[in-house]
Every structure is written in C-alpha cells, then in structure tokens.
C-alpha cells in the first residue's frame, strides 16, 4: 500500500507534482529573454544600463544614464519631472513626446514616462537628447544597444601575416580585453567594455585557406569579431593589449612560455578567457621599435626593450599611412572632395604597387577611421617596418612634394634603450632623406614636378625608421585630377619604384 500524507495525498504523487513544478519553472526561466542592456562609452566612464520595454518601445532611465558623466539631480513634481545636469535644465512632462532642454524644445519620438519618480526616455531619443545636455555628439547604435559619447572609438585592422598565412593579426588603436570563445570552425572575440567600431566592411576576407574570413557584428551592448577557420585556433595578446594574434593552436602552444603576458583561449571546445592586459600608451618608444611582434609577445615589454639589439622578424616592409580620416577631413580640396578620401584611395593604390614589387605593405588607415597621430606612430613603430610613408593631398601648387621631418627644439635626451618620443626620427633622418631622394628621382622620370622639403609634420618626428610624407597636388589647375585613377596610379607607381630602388638600404637598417 502506498504511503500517504496526513492530507491523504500519496507521497509519490506529491513528488511527481514537485518535479513537474520544477520543470515548469526551469522552462519559464529558460524561455525568458535575456535582459537587454545599453553599453555607454565615454571618456569619463564606460558602463552598462538595463533597457526596459514599455508600450512596445525601448526606454532608459535618464538619471542613471547621466549620473556617471557629471553632477546630476532630478526632482519629481507629477506630471512634471525636472533634471539638472551640470548647469543644464531638462523639463519633462509625463505623456508628452517633447521636452524642453535649456528652454529649447526637443522631440523625444515617443512619450516620456515616469515610474516611482524615475524618468524614462525612449532609447531612440538619445541621439538628439544627449547633445543638448552634454554639448557634444552622441552616436547611438540602437539595434545593438551601444552609445558612443563624444568621438570615442577604438578601430582595428586585420591582416594575415605575410610570413605565415596561418597567423591573423588584429591591431587596435587602444588596448582591448575581449573574452574569447571557440567552437568548431569559429573563434569568437567579444568586446563588452571597449568602444570597438565597425571596419569599412563588416566581412573581412584574407585569402587564406586556414583563416578565410572574419566577421564584425554588434548585439546587446557588445561588439564581436568572429574568425572562421578550418582548424582549431588560439588567440594571444600583446603585453600592451593592442595586438591580438590568432593562430593555429599547436604552433601557439609551442611558442608560449610560462608567465606569458596574455595567451588567450584554447582548442576546439568552448572556452573563455579574459587575459590580463594593461593599456600603456608609451611616452617613449624603444630604440628599435621594441614592443614584441605578435609572434614574440610572450616576452615582457621591458625584456623586449632590453633585448632591442636582437633582430625582430619584419612582417611589413612598408607602412602606408592615409593621413586624416573620420572627424578629421583634412583640407577641403573642393566642395565635394576631402583630403581624407583622396589619401585613402591613393594609399590602396600605393599598397598594390608596392606589393607588385614584392614589398609587404600595411595600409594604416584603410577605412574612414579617426586615428590619432600618436597611434599612427605607435602602429608604425611596433610593426618594425623599414619605411613609413604618410600620404597627403593639397589643392595648391602642382605635382608632388616630398617631406622629411623637422625635429622640434628639445632638451630631451634618449634614456637607455628608449628614445625621446618627439625626436625618435633623429637617427633615421639620413635614411629618410635617401628614401625621399630615390622617390623624387622616380617621379622626375615620370615627368612629375617634384620638390623635396623638410616640414614640421607629425608623426614623422615620432617614427623610428625611415619616414617620408608625400603631398600630392593636381598636375595642373584641374583639382578633379587629384581623384583621377590614372594620375594616382602614375604617382603611386613612381613612389613604389623609388622605395623598391632603395629597398636594400632600407632593409639593412636595424
């Protein structure tokens, strides 16, 4: 006879009922959608806030959003809700889709809501609302829940190593610390805290059988780079957190040493890892451009600097830097033509011409990204390239002007293996002048008017290797020629030939 409780219900039946309830609860929990969040990136702080759904729309608490950015206070007097951010007054009314910020009417795109004295504004209104409070731009990626305040952004480039096509090297303009997960055929890097922004095209192809492509995507407050692969991969991090090398798991494991600065995730199973990296923007750059190359990033930075006399494998012989970009348009060459667009088109042609001559080349800015001069110099120095070529375009004059650095007057001295950042170019000036002379000779052969000058032009003075700047002006008075493929090809061919002619001399430099 089955046992019964005092209420007369069989205990087996009670157990089944309890199990059924637990199953239902688990089902309900697993079916619940993940909480939507908004990631906010600013120079003051990076943080994340919950997004709430009201009346079929996404809403966010305005007080919580502004709190980390400055002095903020709110006062509720239903139906009105007032918020003070620094000295800016915002006046909201429940149920109205307009607000007054500093006396100016602002459209909210949907009704303002108040819950327990908490003011909720539609997520879609942040792009227009926040600039009124902050006095600067705010860029909202609404679908992915990412908000960029000011011109903050981390850009990246990805390229297969010319020495080893199984190595894919990501370079970032700021230190990053993604979580890494692998699954068969894919390696995911998720950037939840970094203001990573999309490259020109979300799908990057590399022409490698092992790593054919990488895809950039954004969702729920994070950016993700997914690397597709045919074999198990591992990600390793440079000590400064600005370079991630993705390579076959075996070779990386063999290269790794105990106490490595940041070896990332593992084999074919799902694994995650957040490497401990520190963001260090160097005030000095090591004598031979010392931070270790991705293949050697298991060496501490200091050790790499101390061993600066050791030969460092050179992945790129030339760095081509398309000057300006993003917010910095450079010279307005005409009403429709900006310098930044001409330089990036010219950079791609120059890369092609150099690679046709067997010179591995990296284009430093291959999209409309804002990259600081310090970051450009940092990239150039850490790739150990033999020559750095900055590209500019101008509307005045005609032909091409080649520049080498004028060093600033400074009392700074090099310290041990480190060089002064402002005069890092000092010992490479003769080589830079030789490169400029070689390029000038090739341009003259092409009947292109050319002048060779010095200029106080950053980042030439921060580069530790041969560095020249090429300023392209139209061949005659017709400015549209600057964007002409034929003209760009002619100049790019001559510049590439000039560099190729002096390749041995450039390559012999440490």
């Amino acid at each position, binding site marked *: 006879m089955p046992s019964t409780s005092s209420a007369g219900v069989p205990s087996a039946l009670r157990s089944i009922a309890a199990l059924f309830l637990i199953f239902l609860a688990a089902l309900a929990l697993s079916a619940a959608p993940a909480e939507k969040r908004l990631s906010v990136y600013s120079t003051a702080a990076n943080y994340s806030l919950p997004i709430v759904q009201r009346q079929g729309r996404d809403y966010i608490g305005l007080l919580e959003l502004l709190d980390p950015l400055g002095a903020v206070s709110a006062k509720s007097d239903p139906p009105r809700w007032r918020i003070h951010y620094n000295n800016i007054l915002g006046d909201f009314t429940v149920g109205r889709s307009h607000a007054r910020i500093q006396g100016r009417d602002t459209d909210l795109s949907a009704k303002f809501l108040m819950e327990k004295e908490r003011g909720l504004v539609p997520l879609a209104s942040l792009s227009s609302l926040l600039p009124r409070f902050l006095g600067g731009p705010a860029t909202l990626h609404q679908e992915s829940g990412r908000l960029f305040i000011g011109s903050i952004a981390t850009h990246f480039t990805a390229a297969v190593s010319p020495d080893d096509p199984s190595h894919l090297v990501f370079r970032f303009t700021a230190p990053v610390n993604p979580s890494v997960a692998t699954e068969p055929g894919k390696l995911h890097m998720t950037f939840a805290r970094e203001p990573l922004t999309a490259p020109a095209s979300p799908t990057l192809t590399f022409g490698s059988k092992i790593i054919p492509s990488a895809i950039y995507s954004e969702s729920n407050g994070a950016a993700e780079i997914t690397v597709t692969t045919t074999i198990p991969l591992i990600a390793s991090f440079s000590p400064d957190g600005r370079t991630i090398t993705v390579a076959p798991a075996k070779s990386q494991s063999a290269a790794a040493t105990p106490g490595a600065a940041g070896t990332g995730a593992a084999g074919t199973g799902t694994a995650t890892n957040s490497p401990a990296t520190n963001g260090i923007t160097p005030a000095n750059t090591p004598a031979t451009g010392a931070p270790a190359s991705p293949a050697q990033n298991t060496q501490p930075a200091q050790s790499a600097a101390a061993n600066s006399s050791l030969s460092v494998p050179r992945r790129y012989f030339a760095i081509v830097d398309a000057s300006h970009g993003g917010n910095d348009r450079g010279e307005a060459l005409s009403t429709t033509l900006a310098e930044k667009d001409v330089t990036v088109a010219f950079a791609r042609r120059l890369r092609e011409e150099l690679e046709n001559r067997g010179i591995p080349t990296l284009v430093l800015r291959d999209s409309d990204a804002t990259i600081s001069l310090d970051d450009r110099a940092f990239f150039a120095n850490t790739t150990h390239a033999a020559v750095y070529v900055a590209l500019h375009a101008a509307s005045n004059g005609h032909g091409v002007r080649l520049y080498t650095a004028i060093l600033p007057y400074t009392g700074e001295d090099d310290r041990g293996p480190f060089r002064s950042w402002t005069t890092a170019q000092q010992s490479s000036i003769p080589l830079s002048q030789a490169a400029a002379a070689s390029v000038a000779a090739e341009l003259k052969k092409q009947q292109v008017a050319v002048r060779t000058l010095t200029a*106080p*032009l950053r980042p030439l003075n921060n580069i530790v290797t041969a560095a020249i700047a090429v300023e392209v002006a139209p061949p005659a008075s017709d400015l549209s020629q600057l964007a002409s493929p034929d003209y760009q090809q002619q100049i790019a061919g001559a510049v590439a030939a000039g560099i190729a002619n002096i390749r041995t001399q450039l390559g012999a430099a440490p």
Partner: protein
Amino acid sequence: MIPRHFYIAVSVLLLAVLGMSLYAWHIRGRATGPLASLDTRPVVPPVAGPTEQVTLFVAYDDTGVLHAQPARIPLPSVRQQRAEELLRALLALYLDKSSPHPLPQGADVRSVYLVDPGLAVIDVNAAFADGHRSGVLSEELTVASLIQTLSANLPGILKVKILVEGKQRDTLAGHADLSGFFDVNAINQLTTQLQSTQ
C-alpha cells in the same frame, strides 16, 4: 467743414513720414553690410619715428616659395615691440587685397614675448589659425615666414613657440605641428629650401 490748410499740413506730414521711412530703410541696408565684416583686431597705436630697413620673408602661394623682401618700417626701440611691429608689417602684406599668401580676415599677432635665453613666443589670434588654408606647404610657408622674419631681424633667437589665443594648439590648420618649439636653425635651413622651386 475741415479747413484747406489742415489738409495741406497733414499731406506734408505724411510725405515727410514716408520720406523718412525710405531714408531709414536705405541707411539700415548700408549699415548691415560692412558691420558683418568689421575688422575685430585690437586698435594698435601707430608707431611714429624714423623708419628702419628690415627684411621680411614673404610667402608666395603661386610658386610655393619664400622671398626675402627688404622693407622700411617704423620700429620702436623696445625689442619686444620691435618683434610685434615686424610681424604686423608682414601680416599687413598678407592681409592686403593683392596678397601673395592670403591670410584670413581678422588674422593678427596678439603679442610676441621674448624670453631669455633665446626663446620667442608668438601668440596669434583665433582668426589667424581657424581660417588658415589647410595643407602641408601652405602652413609651413606661414610658419617659416613668421619665424624667419623674426629671427633674421632680431638676432639671438634660438627657438620659437607659436600659440593661438595664448594656448597651445596641435597644428596650425591640420598639418604644421605647433605642439613643440621650433628650432630656428632648422627653420633657417627650411627657408633656404623654400627659396627655390626645386
């Protein structure tokens, strides 16, 4: 019945009002035009006294060169004021209608500070930098012109700093680096390069 002289008086008054209105409209139209382009530079008392022979290094955009150009200008005896007058004479050329290297309207040198040993600080106004033509050569012609004119006429200057409205600025108009101190020797060599079109 209204007297006839009353009609005449009212008609004359109406005509006067109409005439005054038209005149006021005309005056208003004339006044708004030039006001917008008023020169905002501070008024500097004219320098009196004997003139002196100086050498101005003048930029020419059409050829992209810097020419040493003799000029006679009145100069005060105080070294710092002499520096300011030299640069104002140079700017007068650039602000002229037939300028070989046009600078934006309202561009001015606010002050020049001479600090021993051998440092000159040139403080230009915002209009000078904000409206300056962008380009490596355009900007370096301006920088070289200012520094070479100063150092050629006031011996002993070794390094020069250029400020905008009293503050450091990264570049003049996107290219020429203003963040550091210019080495007068290096600018002297640049001037030699810029005096030739080759």
